């Protein structure tokens, strides 16, 4: 039980399961407190095949009073698998509904990697409801500067999420950045905290992005957008965030030295950039 008299620095995260359009999803909600009570919360869209626990370091580095919503994509982590494969637009509509069910008519969204695709789709599809967008280490779908084929091959199966030894052996090659000096870190990140769902969930996620590209509609994004990318990211070569920042009308680019998962592994240096962007007054963006 929370103790109301002690005026907490941050509200506790609450993990719940809710049913959205008949699909049971595991979510984690941290309500905003203090100055953030009436602010739109930050919705975090995760990378492929991992449960929301992976984002914990990122959440810990955010302002403790900021409201944060995390969720497991259907078929991943603790969420029930969807009955059929789905396109990314359907998932974006489902996520918008999820946020509405939670009582958030407006929210900010941060998309990491695969989740960045979802964030771009959300931003264009639910443009009235998404206030600001943060895209981290993500591309524009099928029309992007691709990663090396050997990296793509490794991304095509969920094995790295299931086999810690395998994850440690390939982490440096696919994630780059700090993983090069400490590949065990990647294995730990992907193995010990995440909950793995059925393999089908992973393949549905891959399939959702098949044939999808945000390139044609990036010019239509009207939200202030922060595009972040690492210069040593084997999955998303730095040309991609550059391209996104150029195409999105109100975009700000932040390139950093590091790899694919640095927003999580080096959260204390990168998350302040996100905070600053989210707090900046509208006319500065």
């Amino acid at each position: 039980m929370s103790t109301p008299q002690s005026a907490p620095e941050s509200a506790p995260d609450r993990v719940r399961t809710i049913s959205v359009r008949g699909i049971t999803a595991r979510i984690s909600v941290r309500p905003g407190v203090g100055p953030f009570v009436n602010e739109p919360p930050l919705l975090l869209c995760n990378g492929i095949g991992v449960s929301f626990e992976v984002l914990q370091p990122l959440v810990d580095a955010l302002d403790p009073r900021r409201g944060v919503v995390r969720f497991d994509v259907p078929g991943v982590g603790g969420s029930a698998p969807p009955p059929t494969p789905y396109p990314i637009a359907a998932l974006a509509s489902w996520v918008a509904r999820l946020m509405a069910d939670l009582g958030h008519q407006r929210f900010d969204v941060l998309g990491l990697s695969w989740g960045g695709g979802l964030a771009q789709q959300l931003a264009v599809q639910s443009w009235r409801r998404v206030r600001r967008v943060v895209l981290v280490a993500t591309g524009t779908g099928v029309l992007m500067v691709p990663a090396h084929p050997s990296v793509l091959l490794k991304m095509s199966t969920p094995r790295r999420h299931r086999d810690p030894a395998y994850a440690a052996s390939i982490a440096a090659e696919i994630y780059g950045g700090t993983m090069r000096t400490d590949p065990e870190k990647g294995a730990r990140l992907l193995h010990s905290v995440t909950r793995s769902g059925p393999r089908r969930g992973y393949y549905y996620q891959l399939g959702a992005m098949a044939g999808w590209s945000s390139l044609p509609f990036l010019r239509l994004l009207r939200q202030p957008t922060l595009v972040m990318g690492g210069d040593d990211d084997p999955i998303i070569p730095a040309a991609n965030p550059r391209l996104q920042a150029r195409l999105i009308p109100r975009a700000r680019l932040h390139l950093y030295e590091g790899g694919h998962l640095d927003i999580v592994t080096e959260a204390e240096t990168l998350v302040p950039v996100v905070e600053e962007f989210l707090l900046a007054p509208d006319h500065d963006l």
Partner: protein
Amino acid sequence: MTATRSEPARRADERISDAGARDEPGGSELSTPLDLLLSEAGRGPLRRFLPGMSGVRLAAGLARRPGAVVGRAAGLGAELARVQVGRSEVAPHPKDRRFADEAWAKNPFLKRTLQSYLATGQALRGLVADAGLGYGDEQRMGFIVDNLVEALSPTNSPALNPRVLKRTIDTGGGNLLAGGRRFVKDYATAPRVPSMVEPDAFAVGEDIAVTPGSVVLRTEVFELIQYTPQTTKVRSVPLLIVPPTINKYYVIDLAEQRSLVEHLVQAGQQVYCVSWRNPDARHADWGLDTYGQAIIEAMTAAQDIARQEQVALLGICSGGMIASMVMAHLAATGDLDRVAAFSLAVTVLDQHQAGLPSALLSHKGAAASTRASREKGYLDGRALAEIFAWLRPNDLIWNYWVNNYLMGHAPKAFDILYWNADPVRMTAAMHRDFMDLAVRNALTQPGESTMLGSPVDLGTVDVDSYVVAGIADHLCQWESCYRTTQMLGGQSRFVLSTSGHIAAMVNPPGNEKASFQTAETNPADPAEWLAGATKVRGSWWEDYVEWLAARTGPERNRPRRTGSAAYEPVCEAPGTYVHDR
């Protein structure tokens, strides 16, 4: 996973496959429906409907008795003729809700359809009896024929069920459209049975599993929930509940007023409950020892937080099996005085002739099933749910078939069914260990199984015990649960509740009809026990609270906070593991 398998694990595998090689058709007698569930779930439900050798023997048996077959056929022919001219007396059982609509009695066409169906069903069931099969084959064929007969019921057909016909006219076919949508949704994902509850009927932590408390310990395997005391005085010895590993723990913490946990907390017990993690392929190696070790860790935490030398243990279903083995381990290591009282609910330890269709589990089946789960890393709870539903097709399949698909209604919101639709996976190693215990009925023989390196001898567990069973339990027959009283070494109080496996557990006071039976002595024969038992009005929950209070020490002031310095609360109950699908 093969490389990491331990030596005992390999031996268990070998034992199971050896047993498979020695399998005598129809000769196995060592199954409980629980094992059956576990065995079948590894392989999928279709296999149960293949008659196999039992079918061959049925045909052979009938071929030897041509007279009987001709007699049946003639009898059926005559009955069908009487049905056609409207002279037949055949009628459904008055309590059979399927045929409650008056159209079945008044509409001549429907009446004849119904009577033909009943007569044919009777004849088919009679044929199985005529064949003179052995016990095993007869059970198996009986099961298949029953399922077939029930599936063919005219109520299942949209063109013959008068209720459906009326509704089709009322809604202009909208019911069938809605039903079709439901059908597609249900059958796209496992379990491929009609859903018995809407996915949004309840929300864990919102309207079920709401007794206040905190998670005071989180390990890889489980979360330990400490419930917040609701009385000013509490019993000094804490109570640790070990729930089944096959479903979520919240069967004992359903809605308010229906929660055993809440009842115990309000009766002044300090209640701790284990919430098992929903394991996946990465946890394939977690076996009985992993879970036994987890129980000991939870006991230690509860003892430390309550600053007591002792805990009381309550094990439920499969959780009770593991807890019993842990008790034997504690006895072997001289630590048994850590447990002040031991209770078991709907738990079967002696699997010998544990009732119901024992012939449905074969050694070969067990071997194939553990092999299947080993390849996958786990046994999917959804597969279990499918098997479970097909054990009682009239209640759990056809009833919902008509309601969901033909009538187009949403199933009613019922908390137990919501719980039932929220299964937990079982690790491959655990599945293998359970099957191994069952196939050898190892808990009945001292030293036949081990827990954390100690040989398990339940006779050495001389702590007072409280054993609960449900009289209509089709999963853990009460006679089998009763045999526990003969196996444990201490004083046992056996309580026989009304109703079945789950409803016996969820038995809140206040129900006018609730009652239970109990007796002063526990003779070896369950029938003798039943004859000597007296009926008590009310729920066994109240009886249990009294029994516990006598064994959980003097009252003391409630602790001021949950957890302790060493066990800082991690998050609020019901925790995070309970949300893993």
